[in-house]
């Protein structure tokens, strides 16, 4: 029998909340703020822990879908063609480590955006923002919901 991740996180949160916090001097404002933030972080991590891998895998899948559509639609001069082919390679490559794969695809998209600005066809210049914004509006919604527990987001209020 070994402690689960949830049990370990819960015990640290309880220790910080019930043992460490009350013993901090009243004038230790930085320490108090940081312990509160640490507790907040840990509570959110505890909430999300079981979903982290799924969230990141979905993020990669979404980004690859965007990259694939971009690669198919972009036409233009030599810079655009070279960036498009690099992106096609990245989309088709085995994923490996998820964060590294995501970074690589995102960087490939960045280079394609720059290339289309330099020598993309008129059609590519029109389609590129349409494709990115359509995909990103959905992706951003997922990211905002993921980080909603941090309390910054006004999405509920704005809605």
């Amino acid at each position, binding site marked *: 029998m070994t402690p689960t991740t949830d049990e370990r996180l819960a015990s640290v949160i309880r220790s910080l909340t019930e043992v460490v916090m009350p013993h901090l001097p009243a004038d230790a404002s930085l320490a108090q703020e940081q312990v509160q933030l640490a507790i907040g972080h840990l509570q959110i991590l505890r909430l999300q822990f079981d979903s982290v891998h799924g969230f990141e895998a979905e993020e990669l899948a979404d980004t690859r879908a965007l990259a694939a559509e971009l690669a198919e639609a972009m036409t233009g001069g030599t810079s655009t063609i070279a960036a498009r082919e690099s992106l096609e390679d990245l989309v088709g490559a085995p994923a*490996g480590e998820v964060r590294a794969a995501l*970074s*690589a695809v*995102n960087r490939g998209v960045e*280079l394609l955006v720059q290339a289309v600005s330099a020598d993309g066809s008129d059609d590519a210049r029109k389609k590129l923002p349409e494709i990115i914004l359509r995909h990103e509006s959905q992706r951003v919604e997922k990211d905002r919901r993921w980080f909603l527990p*941090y*309390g910054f987001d*006004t999405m*509920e209020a704005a809605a």
Partner: protein
Amino acid sequence: MNTALIERPLVQNEMETVHRKIIDRRRNNRGLPPYRAALTEEIVEILSAFFAKERPGARVSGVRRVGGGASKEQFFFTLSDGGKEEQFLLRMDPRSAITETDREREFVLIDAMQGRVPVPEPVWIDNDAVHFPQAAAIMRVVSGVTKPSDAGVKVSGLGTWLGPELREKIKDQFLDYLVEIHSYDWRANPLPGFEVPDADAKQAARWNFNYWRELWEVDEGEPRPVMSLATQWMADNMPDTAGLVMLHGDYRTGNYLFDEASGKITALLDWELARIGDYHEDLGWVLMEIFGSFDSDGTFRASDLFEREEFIAEYERRSGRTVNRETLHYYDVASSWKCNIIVAANGLAAARSQHNHQDVLLTFLGAAAPMFANDLVRLLSKGAEA
């Protein structure tokens, strides 16, 4: 994986000298050992040694850390001298911050604003960290609060909720002071370190873009498609300068002190991002949704003070300037883009390098990045103009 794709070229674009210095310092400091938050007793010792030279016979007491804030180490203290007691604030840079700036530049500008708008009185500066462990400035303490004591009413967002009563008391001052800052005659009264982007019609927009773009690269911001699109859109759509003014750079509710009973603004704070640039840049920042509020009926108020069109109309009326909607749209995009760089690159880089005293806050703030990404999607969906 093609690793060449994720290598970042070292670029050196034109920008103000002070900004080049900040970027070089940030890049060069990357390998330095971790930074530790200063202990109160250490600050007592440092301040006592400083005033032993600066004001012999004076005694330092009541040193206490100031809570809140995400970029500077700040301490209140009392200086007793000849039976007189004065309250001061020490503002000291950590090794690296979410917004890394120049203490002397801030000091010089606040000094120039004395008597024009309410500001703290800057008294001592140690920009080269001769007396303090890091660059530092000391200012006289001004009374007031940055948010009402019942601000807990607002449960989300980075903005401060003022409510109807304070809103009516504060809004005219807020706008009048912005107009006054913008009217500062920097040609007749040039400030050391503040360069003027007037070499060509696009230099103001270009300097702003180049600085933040390089900060993004230096701090290895993780690209996401909408940021890449926004960056290229800004490079391709730089507006001509409509008019050069002294910009505050971070003008919003939360960055001024006010008297809670009267609603009188007692001091405008956080001048560290000030520069000479297009007035639309400050307007775009003020109008950012993330720093504002939404009523239950969905009405948005910038800084919880003005509805968007009301703010634009009143700024035009009081300043005599015309707000160009295309230029404002550019700076709306630029503001959200810049905020994304601050939370998703600058803050996280400072935390990763352990060069800040609030790593845990910086990573917490990083969670705001999707909101700015959402702003970029919303704004860029409008096309080239609003």
